């Protein structure tokens, strides 16, 4: 398989590169070994039942270009309407083709003790938190997390000491400027919030053009007691992109993780979020919105592990599938024995705009405690014909009416969004997607 061979080549190149920290090499080697031994999962694998990786397997991924094509990167940001975000304070870390770009980044001003840095710059100092993150991956079966451990070159390392409250947001902007041959960027992030911290992190993934490339991001989130993180992921990759993301959240008592995952771009997209509610009174809120058209394939897998009593989780994912797009939602909620007083709700609703569009939705509740409140619901539907006629009878052209109704369906996921500049941007991106989708329908 071209992909596996190119990953092996990338691995050897990385191992031979000067300045590779000694401590990291064995970890990388064991992860690579485990990844190659298992190979890429097929649709026979339960977690990949509806998502075929054939397109990735058949692609040769060479190393990303080392030079920062900053100008091209900025141009793609502007093209994607992601260039500036007014009214949002905080540092901006920009990564181009998977590598930190100091020239495009702005450090912002941060309270003492807060670390917001590029992962590559921290490798030599052997951060304990990175080591434990990598070690945690080693035992995991998730193939792309193993591959990430073997091949990651950069990412963001964010650490907040206890009782730190950050205003605004930390922005991580990942831009890909695809070259003539496909490349892969393996990005490793670690977000660690000390006790009582509050922070917002906004990740944007941007690429332009039809060329193929792979983004493979693994993010570890550690939330100490009473800390709260708002985590936004906005995925606007290029039309030919493979985007794989895996967010693993470890929550201590009374911590709160709120996620907004908005997926608009890419050819083949797989987003995993797993949250471990490891101590009582932790809360996890997952909001998701995926819009896909043409032959895009978007797969969202979430796993919420209620390991302790008195925890809450709520999950709302919505999808809009146009043309021949395909969506997958797999949401598992596990309530372990003893996790009494668990309060878990999950909802996935999908709107299919054409007969060709398709979605597979699988809510999975596994409950091993008896005093819990768990609800789930999944729905797949079309636009309301009565509403459509009502709008048209008032003079609104059919395609505009369709967009109004689709926007209304999709945007309520964003209603609860706390930061106005981010909310406006996301609403704008959804509108823009709808307009483009309408143009294509012509």
């Amino acid at each position, binding site marked *: 398989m071209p992909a596996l061979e190119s990953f092996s080549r990338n691995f050897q190149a990385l191992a031979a590169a000067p300045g590779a920290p000694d401590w990291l090499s064995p970890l990388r080697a064991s992860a690579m070994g485990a990844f190659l031994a298992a190979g890429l999962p097929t649709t026979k694998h339960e977690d990949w039942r509806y998502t075929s990786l054939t397109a990735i397997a058949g692609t040769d991924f060479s190393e990303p270009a080392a030079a920062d094509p900053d100008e091209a990167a900025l141009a793609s940001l502007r093209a994607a309407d992601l260039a500036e975000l007014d009214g949002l304070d905080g540092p901006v870390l920009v990564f181009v083709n998977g590598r930190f770009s100091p020239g495009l980044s702005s450090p912002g001003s941060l309270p003492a003790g807060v670390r917001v840095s590029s992962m590559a710059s921290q490798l030599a100092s052997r951060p304990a938190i990175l080591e434990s993150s990598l070690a945690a991956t080693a035992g995991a079966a998730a193939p792309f997390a193993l591959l990430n451990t073997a091949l990651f070159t950069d990412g963001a390392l964010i650490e907040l000491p206890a009782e730190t409250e950050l205003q605004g947001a930390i922005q991580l902007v990942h831009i890909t400027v695809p070259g003539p041959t496909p490349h892969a960027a393996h990005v490793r992030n670690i977000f660690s919030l000390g006790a009582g911290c509050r922070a917002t992190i906004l990740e944007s993934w941007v690429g332009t053009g039809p060329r193929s490339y792979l983004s493979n991001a693994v993010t570890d989130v550690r939330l100490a007691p009473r800390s709260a993180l708002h985590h936004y992921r906005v995925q606007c990759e290029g039309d030919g992109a493979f985007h794989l993301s895996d967010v693993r959240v470890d929550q201590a008592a009374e911590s709160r993780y709120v996620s907004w995952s908005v997926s608009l771009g890419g050819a083949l997209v797989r987003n995993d979020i797993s949250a471990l509610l490891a101590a009582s009174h932790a809360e996890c809120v997952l909001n998701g919105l995926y819009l896909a058209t043409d032959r895009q394939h978007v797969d969202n897998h979430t796993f919420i592990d209620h390991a302790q009593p008195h925890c809450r989780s709520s999950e709302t994912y919505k999808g809009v599938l146009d043309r021949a797009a395909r969506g997958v939602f797999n949401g598992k909620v596990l309530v372990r024995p003893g996790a009494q007083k668990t309060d878990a709700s999950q909802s996935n609703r999908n709107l299919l705009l054409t007969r060709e569009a398709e979605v597979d939705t699988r809510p999975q509740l596994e409950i091993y405690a008896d005093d819990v409140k768990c609800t789930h619901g999944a729905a797949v539907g079309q636009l309301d014909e009565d509403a459509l*006629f009502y709008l*048209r009878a008032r*003079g609104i052209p059919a395609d505009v009416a369709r967009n*109004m109704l689709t926007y209304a369906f999709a945007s309520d996921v964003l209603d609860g969004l706390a930061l106005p500049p981010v909310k406006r941007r996301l609403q704008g991106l959804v509108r823009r997607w709808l307009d483009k989708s309408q143009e294509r329908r012509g």
Partner: protein
Amino acid sequence: MLEIKNLRATVGGQEILRGLDLVVKPGEVHAIMGPNGSGKSTLANTLAGRENYEVSGGQVLYDGKDLLAMSPEQRAGEGVFLAFQYPVEIPGVGNAYFLRAALNAVRKYRGIEELDAIDFLTLVRKKMKLVDMDEGFLSRSVNEGFSGGEKKRNEILQMAVLEPRLAILDETDSGLDIDALRIVSAGVNALRSPDRAIVLITHYQRLLNYIVPDFVHVLSAGRIVKSGDKELAHELEQAGYAGFEEPPGDGTPVDVRAVQYRGA
């Protein structure tokens, strides 16, 4: 303005309109009355261009143009307005946003400059007074959670904003208490004008006490079987539709509700 010739329409394979003729001139108010199942709503929906209402024969000319060849939005642009019997709730679409989108779509169609947010707000505030609606309705989703009366007032508000030349009011009086009926009727009366025609579709004479028609037609089994002035409505109120209903057995469904509610 409106010329309906021998109109036949089917819904779900069943012929509901069976050769309907009607001529409406500018400035006129026509009432079309008839028992349930006689084809009143089918007429309204066919004129507005609803998809599952299939025209199987006849012709409808609007200002000499073939109305039936137009899409629903074209009809609205041309000045045809249907006040829905059951206004649709549209969660997530704000009433103000919807009204402005509709007004600007219609203005664009008519070659008039679109209104910006401020001018629109000035206009809509003025129109809201007509139907005694407060501004709170603007920020709510279209018809969502509105009471029956509020929904009907919202229909008349839309009519006032869009300024149609031909307004078809489909059972606008249904589900209204007497106060709401007064408000809605006052709104409609305020919109009467020499170049605007109004077609009131109703089951009951009650509405016609408030909106006095120039002509009253009786619709039965998909045809207009009798026409007259407003006195005809009073006769119907006294005698009911019994004389106009085809005897059972000829394929016309007998409408139990029509019998139950008679004289109520």
